[in-house]
């Protein structure tokens, strides 16, 4: 382990964090523009060309807003909660490979931060602790709406995490490894979405619930709970929640693309390794567009129906999928 290696890691990590935060800013813009188009409106187009500077203007606005902490709030938790929400969102994509490796400044640089053996389990572990921020925000605000938001998100996470985890078992079984790189390499000929349609659909729906996107945006259901768990938050602390939500959106799109859509795989990626990140980026954009499209289209499902869907439909389907996949893998593997 030489110094160059450590520098490489540090630079790659900083790049990832910058990419995620910058991506967050422009996903908000993308969402607003796309939603506007779908709703016969124009959307923000005044700040900069095509409204490209709008996210910066929003950030400036949010920074200069007044920070409010309710009198009855648990101050420590109230301040810590947004931070706890953002960090898992930022670190979760650490195991996602962007490509094989490229030659830069005479160094062979691997296009992934951490190529760990249990990458998928890492993803599961980080997702499972990401609910704490929301739950604690809801609890510490000392507000009934926030409390409801926190409780709902906890219940929702627990219900959907199982289906989510099981949906990822399919690719693991097919690739025979928990290493994300191996899973991507196994999809060289055929993306797993085609081999695992049920798993893919379950993953897609479960992640919508996991990141609180419409039509599963229970914890912040505006019409019922005003703003749910972040009702009492203002200024940058609110922005952190907002940021976490969008970063998670990008993260699940990246994970989903990697696990089911072949990740950085694509035509000519072996000859031109820098095409890898481009392919991944394109897949992520399409995924995000579908997310936004769904938000513009579907009404919110009621909370109890959502839970029923999670436990009575998605979970059994995911379980069955794992069962069948396992049997088929055993039958087709040559000994």
């Amino acid at each position, binding site marked *: 382990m030489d110094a160059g290696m450590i520098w490489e890691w540090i630079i790659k990590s900083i790049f990832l964090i910058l990419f995620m935060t910058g991506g967050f800013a422009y996903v908000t813009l993308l969402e607003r523009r796309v939603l506007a188009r779908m709703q016969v409106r124009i959307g923000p187009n005044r700040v900069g060309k095509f409204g490209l500077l709008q996210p910066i203007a929003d950030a400036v606005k949010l920074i200069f807003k007044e920070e409010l902490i309710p009198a009855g709030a648990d101050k420590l938790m109230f301040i810590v909660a947004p931070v706890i929400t953002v960090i898992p969102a930022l670190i979760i994509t650490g195991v996602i490979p962007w490509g094989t490796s490229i030659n830069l400044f005479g160094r062979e640089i691997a296009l992934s931060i951490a190529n760990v053996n*249990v990458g998928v*389990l890492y993803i599961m*572990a980080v*997702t*499972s*602790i990401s609910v704490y921020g929301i*739950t*604690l925000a809801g*609890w510490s605000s000392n507000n009934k709406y926030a409390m409801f938001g926190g409780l709902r998100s*906890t219940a929702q996470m627990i219900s959907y995490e199982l289906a989510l985890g099981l949906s990822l078992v399919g690719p693991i079984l097919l690739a025979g490894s928990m290493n994300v790189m191996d899973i991507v390499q196994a999809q060289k000929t055929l993306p797993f979405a085609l081999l695992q349609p049920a798993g893919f659909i379950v993953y897609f729906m479960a992640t919508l619930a996991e990141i609180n996107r419409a039509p599963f945006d229970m914890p912040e259901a505006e019409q019922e709970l005003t703003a749910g768990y972040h009702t009492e938050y203002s200024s940058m602390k609110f922005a952190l929640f907002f940021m976490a939500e969008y970063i998670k959106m990008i993260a699940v799109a990246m994970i989903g693309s990697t696990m089911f859509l072949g990740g950085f795989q694509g035509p000519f990626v072996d000859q031109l390794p820098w095409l890898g990140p481009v392919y991944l980026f394109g897949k992520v954009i399409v995924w995000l567009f579908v997310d936004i499209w769904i938000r513009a289209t579907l009404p919110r499902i009621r909370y109890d129906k959502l839970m029923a869907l999670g436990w009575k439909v998605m979970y059994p389907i995911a379980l069955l999928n794992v069962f069948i996949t396992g049997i088929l893998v055993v039958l087709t593997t040559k000994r």
Partner: protein
Amino acid sequence: MPPLGVIILYAIIGLVSVGSAVGLLVSRNAIYSALFLVLNFLTVALLYLVLGAPFIALAQITVYAGAIMVLFLFVIMMLGAEKLTESSLRVRGLRVLAVVLGLVFAAEVALFLVVRGGIPAAPAEPALTFGDPAAVGLMLFQQYTLPFEITSVILLAAMVGAIVLTRGDLKDRLARRAALEKKA
């Protein structure tokens, strides 16, 4: 002897782990207690990681920190039980019991030291496959099949029990339905 960096890391993690366990006991607020426990689980997971068992470490986080403690928090918040009052803490004989159990534990440790004859030497470096998913899986399904199956049956029983408990108003509902039918 492992390298110095690992020892320092181990010491820090151990201290945080013990500190969070103490915090869990001392804290008056149930939510904080639960969070200290989460921290404790995370540090224990890091210890596993240092010991070269990433699978067990991440499974620890996913299961304990991610699922079980979230449920704990959920229940505490749901019942509004985060503020413990003096009276709710006063269970008779609690202190005596604590002292007795502490003594038992100390005796156990002493016995262990006597039997094993002092602090054991560092074990040999485990094999590279130690604690990886395949190894754990094989162990569970070959060496420990019976305990594994027994555990799953117990869990199933607990699940059924929970459902039965929450459906406690079954009699009420049957009575109500009967009344409705009579009306019709």
